[in-house]
């Protein structure tokens, strides 16, 4: 209490002084009427508080969810109080309890948030999302970490419902998925399965939704779902084909391997494309039925609506030709072989191969394509007769020498004799000529035949005779040479000896130390000297030509 005295000083009059406060020292407070009184304004605070509380309460009431029940076969991955119910990966509810039922199922009691209440209707579907690998896609991988959840696909029907049976497999398409469903009919399923992808220009645009046998068991009905916006590429003229696995084709076109994608190889797939010639461009109606072709070629071939059938009778084997082999016209593929049979002619007792072909006149040219309906039998035969008159013939050609695959070629052979087409025959016949390889074969045969005609025995006898003559001639030559050796050779040797002696003599004459040589050198020296003297004279004369007249002067002058 060291500062007690200070306090007493500051306080002025000591506190022990009793009695009334000295009025003189205390100033009068200034009256102040300006201050307004807003005290009741404080009640704004509790009003706001009440409002907030009421709002929070209202939120609480509104957020009370809807209790639903779902039965599942298995409760794997489900946990009461933790497993969420999700729609588009958004939490819309939570599993409250999981109970056993009397049957083989489990009963999941869940609560759906008030905001998703309206989605729980008669055809709403629930399923458990677990990690799965299907259709070439890994789905629900997030659930490995977060645990399974129940997914919901809201229905569209009106009345709400509280009890559901959960799906064991996720539905292939959800109700709200944009896109359209198409029905495909196929002879067999191939390796297409539910979930197999659907490709458009190798872009994955949808998937297979269901596969089932048709009612008669004569085919398969496949439903595919094409996502928006790709579904608009499916028109009435669109072709679907199976791209499952690897298509290996070995035909007259050579060896071809076709695959769509690795995924399609493994799990199968369906592709579609609209042939460029198709004039229908309006999108197909949903649930339109299409044919599922086995491969792209057959799918795209079908675009020719006009087919003209013809028959060809060959005079030789048609080995190598198969149904589906192309028919070329001047090298352009315009049709295909549809049948290969043997034609037995009872009257002639002959058998010949009969090959049925179809030709797509639409392939011929744009102008011909626009000629309209062509199937007037009379006109067709008439036209064919004109072509044949100009030498049109069918010919079997080998497209692939390696495999021997053959095709039918239509070509012009102007030198061929004129043939009259049997107008009554259906289908009309196109006359044939032995073709390419066949012709070559015939030629070789002819050569062989001609070779056979050669009298090899006579030739051999002649040859032998000639050889004998040759031998005699050789003997004569041998005798001649012996004669040369005995009579002519010594003479020649003696002559050669003389010649050598003569040459030796000449050598001696021409030797360096020979007298003739010495004389010659001396003479030559004399001549050189004389020549020098002449050159000196000539020089002197050139310098002093006057010396000829005046005589030589002294050099000193």
């Amino acid at each position, binding site marked *: 209490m060291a500062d007690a005295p200070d306090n007493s000083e500051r306080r002025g009059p000591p506190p022990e002084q009793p009695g009334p406060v000295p009025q003189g020292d205390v100033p009068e*407070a200034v*009256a102040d009427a300006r201050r307004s009184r807003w005290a009741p304004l404080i009640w704004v605070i509790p009003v706001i508080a009440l409002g907030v509380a009421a709002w929070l309460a209202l939120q609480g009431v509104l957020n009370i969810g809807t209790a639903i029940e779902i039965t599942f076969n298995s409760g794997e991955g489900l946990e009461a109080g933790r497993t969420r119910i999700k729609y588009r990966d958004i939490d819309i509810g939570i599993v409250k309890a999981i109970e056993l039922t009397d049957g083989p199922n489990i009963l999941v009691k869940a609560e759906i948030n008030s905001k998703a209440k309206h989605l729980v209707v008669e055809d709403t579907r629930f399923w458990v999302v677990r990690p799965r690998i299907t259709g070439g896609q890994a789905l629900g991988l997030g659930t490995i970490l977060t645990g399974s959840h129940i997914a919901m696909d809201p229905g569209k029907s009106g009345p709400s419902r509280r009890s559901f049976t959960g799906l064991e497999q996720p539905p292939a398409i959800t109700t709200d998925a944009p896109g359209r469903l198409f029905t495909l009919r196929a002879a067999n399923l191939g390796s297409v399965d539910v979930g197999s992808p659907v490709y458009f220009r190798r872009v994955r645009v949808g998937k297979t939704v269901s596969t089932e046998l048709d009612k008669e068991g004569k085919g398969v009905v496949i439903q595919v779902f094409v996502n928006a916006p790709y579904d608009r590429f499916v028109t009435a003229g669109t072709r679907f084909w199976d791209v499952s696995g690897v298509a290996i084709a070995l035909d007259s076109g050579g060896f071809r391997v076709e695959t769509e994608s690795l995924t399609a190889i493994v799990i199968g797939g369906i592709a579609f494309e609209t042939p460029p010639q198709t004039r229908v461009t309006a999108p197909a109606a949903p649930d339109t039925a299409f044919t599922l072709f086995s491969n792209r070629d057959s799918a795209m071939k079908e675009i020719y609506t006009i087919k003209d059938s013809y028959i060809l009778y060959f005079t030789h084997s048609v080995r190598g030709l198969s149904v589906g082999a192309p028919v070329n016209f001047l090298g352009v593929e315009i049709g295909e072989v549809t049948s290969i049979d043997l034609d037995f002619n009872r009257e002639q007792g002959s058998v010949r191969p009969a090959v049925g072909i179809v030709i797509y006149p639409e392939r011929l040219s744009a102008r011909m394509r626009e000629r309209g309906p062509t199937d007037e039998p009379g006109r067709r035969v008439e036209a064919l007769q004109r072509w044949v008159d100009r030498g049109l013939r069918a010919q079997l050609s080998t497209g692939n020498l390696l495999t021997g695959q053959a095709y039918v070629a239509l070509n012009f052979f102007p030198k061929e004799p004129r043939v009259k087409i049997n107008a009554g025959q259906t289908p009309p016949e196109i006359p044939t000529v032995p073709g390419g390889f066949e012709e070559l074969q015939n030629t070789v045969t002819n050569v062989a035949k001609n070779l056979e005609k050669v009298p090899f025995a006579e030739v051999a006898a002649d040859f032998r005779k000639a050889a004998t003559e040759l031998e005699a001639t050789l003997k004569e030559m041998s005798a001649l040479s012996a004669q040369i050796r005995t009579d002519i050779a010594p003479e020649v040797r003696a002559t050669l000896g003389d010649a050598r002696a003569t040459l030796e003599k000449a050598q001696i004459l021409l030797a360096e130390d020979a007298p003739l040589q010495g004389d010659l050198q001396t003479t030559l020296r004399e001549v050189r000297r004389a020549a020098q003297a002449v050159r000196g004279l000539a020089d002197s004369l050139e310098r002093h030509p006057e010396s000829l007249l005046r005589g030589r002067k002294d050099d000193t002058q």
Partner: protein
Amino acid sequence: MTVMAAHAGLLTCELCGLLNRGPAAAPAPSSCARCGSALHARKPDSFIRTWALLAAAYALYIPANVLPVLETQSLVEQTTDTILGGAIRLWSQGAWPLSVVIVVASFAVPLAKMFILTWLLVSARLDAPGALQRTRLYRVTDFIGRWSMVDIYVGGLLIGLVQFYPFADVSVGPAAPAFAAVVVLTMLASRAFDPRLLWDAAVPGRRRFDHG
């Protein structure tokens, strides 16, 4: 005999400390003769203000306890806890000291504080005896009030520390702001209350100062 300044007609300037004589026509608004500050015999509108703030606190106390205060999300689960629910969960998990702290600091103390203030207000009006005890009660109330904020601090710390989405995530629920508002409102209410009102009743021949 005890004399209170107000009863003697004296007003102390709360800013400059000058003792003023109240205006003759009391109670009327007046200001300090020296510094001009407003003079009040008691805290102005103490009853009204305290009552209003207390009512607001009551109104928000209900959502603060009914709604979830903390939403904890981890990989496997997502839990929402109310204040009491969290305390119960902690208790069941064996963390009972923490549980007791939460119950006391976040549930009992604000409630007790609101009840005490209500009692003080009512008793000041009714001129009940025992002003000394009530003053002590007020002192305790004023002192412990701020400690109710422990819960909010813990929540705030957790939110700041645990943000490893998606592995763990903590966020506040709608109860947290309500609870914070309750704490602040009770503190303001206890500030607005003028304990001198408790003693006015004990003075014979008193005047009412609670509105000026």
